[in-house]
């Protein structure tokens, strides 16, 4: 894994006006994440994990401070540029899978490539490769409603990795899965992290996920309580 810098936040704040008061969701976040890291944002509900993930993913913008992702200042990005950044460089995995219900597994995975206007032959190759990575090539014609929770999340992972992004953001990816499926999903993501050198950032408070993390950033009430690298020996 290289050590090149991929994400950097400086004095990052996210505040929400709540009537007469202001809710500080993120409070002076200063972190740097390098390429190829496998990072978990952990902490209790309401600690700011998803908010930070959303800002890194250019789905939201900071109230104050700076968030630089893949050389793009999130706070200055237009809607179009933010969409372009997400389309070309960032993959998302959601807690509730968020598969498009009317599309087949194949079409769901193919979708990001359609947005990138990739030629059909190349699309077929990339989609099948992604489905093989997650072990669902044989279910390519199924609809999301015909899949189990674990299978749906693996489709979501395939959709996130199919365009081979530099960064994958996963928001509670195992929260809706049982222990066995959670393990399979995490194994899949570790494999992709190692094989493709893709940077993974998780927002999670699932204990099952913790043991796979190589770096754990603990958030509490919007600030970074602890930022620790976890060596394999400690796991």
């Amino acid at each position, binding site marked *: 894994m290289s050590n090149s810098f991929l994400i950097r936040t400086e004095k990052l704040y996210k505040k929400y006006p709540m009537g007469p008061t202001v809710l500080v969701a993120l409070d002076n976040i200063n972190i740097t994440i390098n390429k190829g890291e496998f990072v978990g944002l952990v902490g209790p509900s309401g600690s700011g994990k998803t908010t930070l993930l959303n800002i890194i993913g250019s789905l939201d913008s900071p109230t104050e401070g700076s968030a630089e992702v893949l050389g793009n200042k999130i706070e200055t990005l237009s809607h179009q540029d933010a969409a372009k950044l997400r389309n070309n460089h960032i993959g998302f995995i959601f807690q509730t899978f*968020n598969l498009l219900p009317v599309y087949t597994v194949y079409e769901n995975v193919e979708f990001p490539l359609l*947005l990138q206007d990739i030629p059909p032959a190349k699309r077929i190759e990339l989609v099948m490769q992604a489905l093989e990575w997650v072990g669902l090539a044989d279910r390519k014609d199924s609809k999301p409603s015909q899949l189990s929770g674990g299978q749906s999340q693996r489709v979501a992972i395939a959709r996130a990795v199919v365009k081979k992004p530099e960064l994958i953001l996963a928001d509670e990816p195992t929260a809706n899965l049982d222990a066995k499926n959670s393990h399979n999903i995490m194994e899949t993501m570790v494999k992709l992290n190692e094989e493709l050198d893709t940077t993974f950032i998780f927002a999670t408070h699932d204990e099952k996920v913790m043991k796979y993390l190589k770096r754990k950033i603990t958030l509490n009430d919007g600030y970074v309580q602890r930022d620790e690298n976890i060596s394999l020996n400690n796991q």
Partner: protein
Amino acid sequence: MLIIKLAIKNLLGAGLRTWLNVIALSFSYVAIIFMQGLYAGMNNQMEASTIKVQYGGGQYWHELYDPYDPLSLDDSHAKIPNEISGLIKNNDAASILINQGSIYPNGRMQNILIKGIDPNQKILAIPTHFLNNQNGFIPALIGGRMAKSSGLKKGDFVTIRWRDAKGTFDADEVKVVEVINTEVSEIDNGQIWIPLDKMREMTVMPGEATLIVLKQNSQFTKNLSGWEFKNLDFLLADLRSLATTKSAGASIFYFVLLFLAMLAIFDTQILSIFRRRKEMGTLMALGMTRSTLIKLFTLEGSMHAVLAAFAAMLYGGPLVWYLAKVGYGLPASTDSFGFALGDRIYPEFTALLIIGTILLVLTVTSIVSYLPTRRITKLKPTDALRGKFI
């Protein structure tokens, strides 16, 4: 191209909701095309009938003739000008002499117009050859409506009274030699047709006429002193404005239908945006811009109109083809419409009508589809992913 594929996919994926809208919208297509075709057919049919039996290729009117003022008839007659008498001789024009009169059917008096016409004329499609039967009586043609209102029938004799050129009242008997069935009430209601020569003799107006009807497509438009040329645009103006009024009235029906269909589309779009806000968030997370999202949802709405056009073609196509071929039967009461209609109307469905209707519905549907999707511009991806409404 991508959003078209996506829109089709989403639309078909929505299942019954889509098809209900499509069916409702297809009714609008068929109703608009049918009603407009019916009115176009009716309009053309009544114009053609009126030209055939009443207006020919235009008319010369005596300068004092006013069809809406019966009192003008006493003075609105003159000798046929030499410039046009050649046309009449060659059967390229027909002269008509009109006068006021009264008949006394069954002991009651009825005011009428007496119209003299050459029994051998070929300009108007009126069976005037029946007027050649002059065996010691004055032959008369009346229309079906006149027969009904006067109680006269073929073979009946009736007393007729008129005033000649010198103002003297005179009377005689005429024999109804034929009751003609005509779609055009203007040559029927309250009038009697008799031979022109006899009329001239009765009224002491030798060689005179009130109006001269030209053959269809006649190019003769010379200025004749004491006469005014009335072209078909002038003669048909009232008829056309009547048709426009009737057509506008009918359009209320299909606008209501279209409005209901648009309400369904609008409702579907609102529901779609509400139900699919999480999907919108996902699409944005995957890199779709808001403007593409708006285009996608608008296109989805608009494509209801495209699918409806195909659906309308499936069942509406054979229906309109059949109606155009066999016509649409009219009830007897349609005589009271006040214009020339046959027993059947043959609707006319032109390419312009069909394409114009498709474009109209497509445009309205697109606007109605776009209106709710504008809310997407305010949508934040994070809110959408959380399922929060705009």
